């Protein structure tokens, strides 16, 4: 990963934490600073559930233009593990071209 990619990933992470998670899911009990890059998002950790997972997926499309429809369910689950993995997926999709 080049230096410019690192700063892009950091910017993506910031947007993921604030816009995709906190604002979109209206998380009233946590701040962006409290969400670490490796915090588990679903089930444990942040404690999100399946209905919220779909909101995250729609949000990725709306905020980043990233479509996840073609990704098999198990693989997608891995991508949605934490802020780090979501941000990497977004970067990957952008590097390879949107969609």
């Amino acid at each position, binding site marked *: 990963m080049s230096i410019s990619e690192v700063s892009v990933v950091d910017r993506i992470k910031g947007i993921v934490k604030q816009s995709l998670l906190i604002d979109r*899911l*209206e*998380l*009233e*009990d946590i701040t962006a600073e409290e969400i670490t890059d490796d915090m588990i998002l679903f089930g444990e950790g942040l404690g999100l*559930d*399946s*209905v*919220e997972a*779909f*909101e995250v997926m*729609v949000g990725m*499309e*709306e905020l980043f233009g990233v479509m996840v*429809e073609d990704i098999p369910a198990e693989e997608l689950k891995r991508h949605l593990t934490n802020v780090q993995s979501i941000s990497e997926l977004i970067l990957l999709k952008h590097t390879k071209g949107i969609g």
Partner: protein
Amino acid sequence: MTYAQQDHRIAVTGLGVLCALGNNPESVFARMMKAETGVKGLTRFAADNLQCSIAGQLEQEQLDAIVNDDATASMDLCARYAVTAARQALQDSGLAVRRFQQGGIMDVSDRAAIGSDRIGLALGTCNGGILSLEKQWDLTQLDDANTANYPFYQQGDDAAQALGLNGPVVTINTACAASGNAIGYASDMIRWGYADAMLAGGSDPLSHSVYAGFNVLRALNPLPSSPFGSRYGLNLGEGAAFVVLERLDKALLRGARIYGELCGYGLSNDAHHETAPHPEGAGIERAVAMALNRSAVPRERIDYINAHGTGTMANDAAEISGLKKIFGAETTIPISSSKAYFGHNLGAAAAVELVTALYAVKQGFVPGTLHYDAPREGCSDANIIGAELRRLSPQYMLSNNAAFGGHNVSLVLRTAWLKDIDRPPSSSWKRRSRVAITGIGAVGSWGAGQGGVLHLIGESAAGTDEGADGQISFSLKEYDKSKYERRMNKIAQFTIGAVLAAIENAGLEQSELADTGFIYGTSRGSTDSIARFLGSVFEKGPEYASSIYFPHTVINSIAGKTAEKLGLQGFNSSLSTGGSEGIAAALYGAGMIREGALSACLIGAGDERSELSDHIDRAKGLQESRYAKTEGSACIVLSDMDEAAAGGARIYAELRGFGISHGAVRHTPDGELQLRAAIAGALAQAEIGMDEIDLVLLNSIGRAEETEWERGVIAGLAVKSKPPVICLNDKAGYGESFSSMLHLAAAAELAYHGTARGIISGLPGLEEIHFRNVLTVSSSVNGSCIAAVVSGVR
């Protein structure tokens, strides 16, 4: 006839259906026999950016016929579908509805004639008049004419109005279990003596935003669905279906065609998740167990099960698992899902599936599971009927449905030759319990309180913390954080708060909650959540529908969330009447306790203020009301009197009688008759006269001269002394569903104390009265009226 003499068996004597496979049972059956599906390419709206573009739509010709019917032109399509199917069912039954007052006495030799006051309607719907908001596609500029057609209760009221019915009318809103619940509710209305016949069914037209909601939850199957089979996901459908239920003895007497006997039904709540069923099907298992128990039909007698079988990954295996718990792991009972024929019809699903199954059984067949290929995981050792209808004449069958919000319903029908009427009477019907009010809780501008409501109303009227817009500041997070969750809407917070307070007040133990019933009334649910969901669809586009708000577009989500947080797994329902929800829910729960089906039942009602709610008020003419609008929730606990007394519970009062009617429209002669009929019904059931009533608590909506008209009618009923008539809404404010519950709770409080002294002041003339019997009367926006007699126990 008093309540204690009622013990009727229920016949299904008329069928009507409207779905993607046809517009009557015969044509639907013909196409089922040809293994056809009505699920095809979607044409009603664009699905360009969605993952699925098929649905079970009505044929254009059918739709045109409905849209061109001038008699229903002012209604939402949901009500119009309902009217079409209900008319069909009524015609099929051969019953002729006679207006109750025409020509004085009815010709008793005409056995097919039924007075309009002896027949009512129960409609189940998942989304009410949502199309009336979609038509506008902009929540900031809502017009009155369309918005007035949105409320859920409007659909049931419009359908009843179109058919000229004056019996009990209710809209059941338990999402995809709604029409099954409506059919069960309707059978109770007949068994409990409130009606001799009922139209019962469901309706849901195809909605763009609901389609978008299922799309975002990844529940849709882009291919024709195969329940229990290899292709996961559901197809949405649309339609309506109705049955005519009537007393079996009367049906036999008039030589009616009988499709089956509704032996009983069960309801439950998963108390698990707002959209996903319990993974082992524990909720549907409880509903089936209750249905069998109430019907007194041994499980070995069930020859066929029409399953919910949506085709989703979450549902089908869980459902089979639940059924196996009842019928055994090795069960060979034939099971099918009808959903691949015409799609998942949501609130109409149970009714469409029951009507088409009963018609098929009449022809000697049971429905198949279209597109069923190979069993999916979890369904491999079930006896799933494949794509062809099976030649089978079941003696007894089950019809099951499950819903968002965790609500489940199971109906038991006897479909064998019915002239032999030797079926044993239902076991649960042997008892005639008295009903005690043993707990009161309420959340309003006063915060959360218990043990009564009048002292709370008195306090809040003195120093209110209510905003000018009628919004209150109660926070469940502060009251009981363990029951709160992220984004919980206001009405769910109010309701959980009120139910918690009532539970504490009644001294119900945690261990008792799983079997305690819960019947909830709300006319609008969370309008704030609904607006957020519709806003996401209208503003951003259907592909960006909000998944987190979609589950709250069904208004049983409030009862469902309450059940989930409190572990209320027993008999669960949610209903709308547009103004008398609290008493309507109490009538339902009291009936269940009287017949011994429940020992205790929580009865709740609630409202939430929001921008959308203001729009609806304006559209419904509620701005005309003299009372300030408010929000909140109230809950009472009903208990079996003997059990409560034996357990040393505090008994506030006894619920002695109810009466219910439709058509109590102000300033009309018919309206006056209906208002009187509801009150007379309650007095007759309580076996007391109007002269023994010490006080009338009138929950009036308060539109121009409405309260005066109601007071006049009530005053005309008393022969000797006229009891004072008090409306609490000028002190407490008005909430469409909340207020009726407050009045009922206040009646219990006054009957308990026997005096108003020290409880509430500023209501002149009450100080000297000793309260024994309090009559509570509540009317709805469209003229449904319910009355209840509440008496002190000493």
